[in-house]
């Protein structure tokens, strides 16, 4: 029962390795290093990398920027709640607000164009989960995250909240419509 007894040898660190252990450690180490270098590799050669661009902000300051965008670029409203659908110009800064319990406003983007998408929360923590394309990020109050996104599929995407944010969490949705360029 030696794993629950002191080692047989007083100088156990000089005990030689069995070949099976040495071989496996070598293989596992190589695999570990490959996995480690995959991440910087993807930063250079991959297309899906989150920027670390973010700013400290306040709900008031952020809301003012989002409101200005909505006032300028709203193209229509949807649902009985008159939710604005905003179509900002390609390349512009787009402000998405997460709050209890909606993603506001609805966005209309053009396929193949890049946008600087800003996201912040007005209250508690939220999870930005764009489905079905499946992009997920964490949204914090007091922080404005900036992502450059380039929609490459057209159609309707839904923003779901996937961080628990209270009793209305499961009703918190938003939309990004992607139109064919023209």
């Amino acid at each position, binding site marked *: *029962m*030696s*794993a*629950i*007894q*002191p*080692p*047989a*040898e007083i100088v*156990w*660190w000089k005990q030689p*390795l*069995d070949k*099976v*252990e040495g*071989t496996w*450690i070598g293989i*596992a*180490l190589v695999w*570990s290093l490959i*996995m*480690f270098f995959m*991440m*910087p590799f993807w*930063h250079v050669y991959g*297309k*899906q*990398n*989150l920027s*670390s661009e973010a700013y400290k902000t306040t709900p008031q300051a952020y809301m003012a920027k989002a409101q200005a965008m909505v006032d300028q670029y709203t193209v229509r409203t949807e649902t009985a*709640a008159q939710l604005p659908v905003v179509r900002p110009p390609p390349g512009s800064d787009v402000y998405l607000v997460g709050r209890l319990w*909606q993603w506001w406003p609805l966005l209309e983007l053009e396929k193949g164009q890049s946008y600087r998408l800003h996201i912040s929360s007005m209250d508690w*923590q939220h*999870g930005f989960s764009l*489905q*079905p394309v*499946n*992009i*997920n990020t*964490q949204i*914090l*109050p*007091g*922080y404005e995250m900036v*992502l*450059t*996104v*380039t929609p490459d*599929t057209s159609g309707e995407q*839904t923003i*779901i909240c996937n961080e*628990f944010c*209270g*009793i209305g*969490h*499961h*009703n918190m*949705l*938003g*939309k990004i419509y992607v139109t064919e360029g023209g």
Partner: protein
Amino acid sequence: MSKELFRTCPESGLQFHKPAELLMKAHAVVAVVILLIGGIAALLVTLTRWPAVHLLPADRFYQLLTTHGVNMLIFWIISFEIAILYFCSSTLLKVRLATPKIAWFAFLLMLAGIIVNNAAVATGTASVMMTSYVPMPANPNFYLGLILFAVGALIGCFIFLATLVIAKDEKTYEGSIPLVTFGALTACIIAVFTIASGAIVLVPTWLWSLGYINNIDAAMYRIVWWALGHSSQQINVAAHVAVWYAIAAIVFGARPLSEKVSRTAFFLYIAFLQLASAHHLLVDPGLSAEWKIFNTSYAMYLAVLASMVHGLTVPGSIEVAQRAKGYTNGLFQWLRKAPWGNPVFSGMFISLVGFGFLGGISGVVMGTEQINIIIHNTIYVPGHFHATVVIGTTLAFMSLTYFLIPTLFRKQVAFPAIARLQPYFFGIGMSVFALAMMGAGTLGVERRHWDMAFTNATLSFEYPASAYTMMGIMGLAGMVAIVGGAMYILVTVVSVFFGKSVESESSYGIATSRVMRAEPIVIPDGGHAAAGKWGFAAPGTFLLAIFFLVVFVLYYAVNWKYLASVWPLS
């Protein structure tokens, strides 16, 4: 020391110190009661997330999900771990436990914390999930309960350390501490780090909830909280790996292939596991890519390397022990002839395989900086940690319980037929459950969510039918696992409180003896590997390890390919 406080278990040869024994029993009993509470919550939560059943109303669901998370991830496991720490120090080193009175005080603090926290959640004013992310407020007693529990657990850690000091001082053992105690020491060191992080984040949050502090930064909270939240799962890893080694020794008389390798692997846990708080922050605003890559990979996957080493050395040591007994035919006779009807072994082996194949691979994949974009906060995440914490840790602790019932509690295991099947129900049910969650998460289904159909929302969204199928499989498999959990509770409660005593005598009043070193290895004719193949002492295990690696590489590659199909982001 007074000898009337010691007894020897005739079957195992283990020596118990009466005060330590009572404390272990108390902690284990509390742990099992918590497991029952968490298990009832698990049943109701699963029945709600199973779309065809959708049992609870939303408020009750979020409340019980909080109950389930806190009780299972913190209270059950850490309570059991304190019992393991006392076992690995006092029992394995044949030494008196340091300061039993303070240990009882620690026990009462932990119990008080459990009650205060659960009472707060029961009022419905603390349905904030285990993570209690600020600025979502909870009843102050939610945090207070966690703080009390943590202080108690911290005292327990120091009693473990003090007991090691006494054993060294009173020379109760020869040479170095046993490998299993070394693993427990690893768990203890990680626990001290974890609990300190918990204090740093929860004390201010508690004061904030009382109105003494007016703001807790959400990003700061997440970084420090996860040094508690993730590291506490690393205590589990170290503890359940120690339990694997212990069970291999108890059931097979297995010795580590090499003390040096196994101990170095434990040391890598101490050095690197705590960096993993980054796993939860990979898609948070503002953290640099360098910070994420270094931390999420535990430097350069050195803690993953450690787990891959244990994953080889534990079954490898069993293989060598079995081959020495003559099970040398082919590559796998040693495994076929293992005692699959003994739940101590079967539970441990399912724990090892499930932890590696399901929990380990999924954890590394989703902890890859960019791949996390397609997994963060989906139900894949609980799929992963049910494989690590439930199949890995909980099942390992369950299998150890079947050994402790006769040795520690001096009772016969009740309903042996149920006990024999229990690890299979629990392990296989939980494996399918975790896999179905990972499948649903890959399809984007969210975690911590009451209604995947969004019935009451202003806008609408429909998941593909396959996501509903996955969630249905999750529900069914969850029921199988719940049955397995209920079998465990039934067997342990009936054995301990109503069971027949074991027949042999084990009375107090023996003179203590020193823990002798293990017998030196007798190298067989033809060298160490003569009983094996290809010059390997454990060729079957090596082949299994290579199979594991192939699965790992393929699954890793598939996820990069999936990521590459997502919208370009920069």
